[in-house]
């Protein structure tokens, strides 16, 4: 209870009312998504049982849950290579995007020459890039990593160039008045300024890297979430297909949350996002 409330009892009840309201709101924020997911599962189960959908077309939620439980070790075995590919691709794609953004910002002519090439490569759909890279890099993890890297690369490059360039012009003048060198301007001004932009790109990249790895596994692969999706589809094992998809998206969500957590810890000092 605040001091003001202790002096005035009518304030105390207003304060209690306010806090109760806050608690209700917090509770609702937690419960509403659960109700949403629950009703979606009910609708799904209702449709499958009600319309008597055969199991090779679509499984019931119960069948999917049973498969998840029974085949957990096998699903996990297939998740590991996908995780490695997505993570390696994420690192490779983003690191090269950061390096190229840095050179673009310092050498305008390079940006003018190569940005169009990058845009053209980016317009090729992933499903079209995948066979090209499989032919180039073989059947191992390399083409999957390359696809995951390529898919991460473009959003990070664009955001990073913007983050490095959109420096407060007066802060830039300040650096010149202080006779700062190019590398000092980069490390003390441009790079910290780009971090919020970088993290919004990394959050996109976290989920797209997983997509890249899975699409890469569709072509001539025997392990991984992508390969399992193809196998389950051709075997009309819809329960396994759905279970695999769920495992893949759980990994995607976990990866996204990890990046969000790192972002929060890194950008705590940057103040509110609107600054």
């Amino acid at each position, binding site marked *: 209870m605040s001091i003001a409330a202790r002096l005035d009892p009518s304030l105390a009840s207003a304060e209690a009312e306010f806090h109760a309201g806050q608690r209700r709101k917090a509770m609702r924020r937690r419960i509403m998504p659960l109700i949403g997911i629950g009703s979606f599962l009910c609708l799904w189960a209702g449709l499958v049982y009600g319309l008597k959908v055969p199991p090779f077309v679509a499984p019931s939620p119960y069948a999917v849950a049973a498969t998840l439980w029974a085949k957990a070790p096998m699903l996990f075995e297939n998740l590991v290579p996908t995780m490695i590919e997505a993570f390696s691709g994420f690192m490779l794609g983003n690191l090269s995007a950061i390096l190229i953004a840095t050179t673009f910002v310092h050498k305008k002519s390079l940006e003018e020459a190569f940005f169009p090439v990058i845009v053209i490569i980016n317009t090729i759909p992933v499903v079209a890039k995948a066979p090209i890279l499989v032919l180039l890099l073989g059947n191992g993890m390399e083409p999957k990593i390359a696809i995951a890297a390529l898919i991460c690369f473009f959003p990070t490059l664009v955001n990073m160039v913007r983050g490095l360039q959109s420096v407060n012009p007066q802060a830039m003048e300040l650096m010149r008045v*202080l006779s700062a060198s190019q590398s000092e301007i980069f490390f003390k001004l441009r790079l910290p300024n780009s971090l919020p932009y970088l993290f919004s790109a990394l959050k996109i990249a976290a989920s797209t890297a997983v997509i890249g790895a899975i699409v890469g596994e569709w072509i001539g692969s025997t392990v991984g979430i992508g390969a399992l999706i193809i196998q389950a589809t051709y075997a009309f094992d819809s329960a396994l297909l759905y279970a695999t998809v769920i495992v893949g998206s759980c990994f995607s969500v976990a990866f996204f949350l990890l990046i969000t957590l790192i972002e929060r810890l890194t950008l705590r000092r940057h103040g509110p996002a609107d600054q």
Partner: protein
Amino acid sequence: MTLATAITGIAASRGDTASAAIACRDVTVRFMTESRVVTALENISFSIAHGAFLSLLGPSGCGKSTLLRVVADLVQPSAGTMQIFGGTPEEARRSRALGFVFQDAALLPWRTAIDNVSLPLEVGGGVKLGPNDPTPADLLRLVGLAGWEKSYPHELSGGMRQRVSIARALLGGPKLLLMDEPFGALDEITRDRLNEELRRIWVETGTTILFVTHSVYEAAYLGEQVLVLSPNPGRVVECIAIDLPRERDLTVRETPHFVQIAAHLRAMLGKMNA
């Protein structure tokens, strides 16, 4: 008291001596835009002595900020010479003789107040503080921010942010402080208080100050001299000495003498817009 005795009109003296803090001689600045050539400043000449406080007054578009940037070596004059302490603006910049306060405080949002003040120590070869030089903490105290060292810019008010940027500009004891409408974005109450504090800081540090403003009151209250510029292109209209007491507080603005000075300055600005 007549206006003639109240205001000592001094002709913009031809920048002659090397002993002046700033000697500006026939400086012209032209910018090329895609369609035409814009003359921002034309044949500007003035000089100010060591330890002076000069206000640069003029309507927007008169090139006063550009003039400040020529002094700071951020803009190169198209013609004429600018001498700072007998050398070029570049020498002055490299020897860290200049402190610059921008209109927007231009603090780095990821650095605390004290780390923002310390920035000049970390870049450009840095200034080395002697044992008797004020530290960043001393300067924050000087601008009235003791206890706020660990705060981030987004936790400070606009006035406090501008105080931090003044402390940063004062680090290393620059001989010349350049201020580009530093209080223009602040509310009047904060602005008045900072005006008073800036006078105090000027008296305490003895730094030469060049202060750009479009406020008649600010120019007359702060400056020992006011250089009035006209727009399109920027030309010196008049340089007048403000003969108010050295130790002044804001109440000086209510004296008849100050009102006369302000009226005179306002009349000059009014003629330009006509």
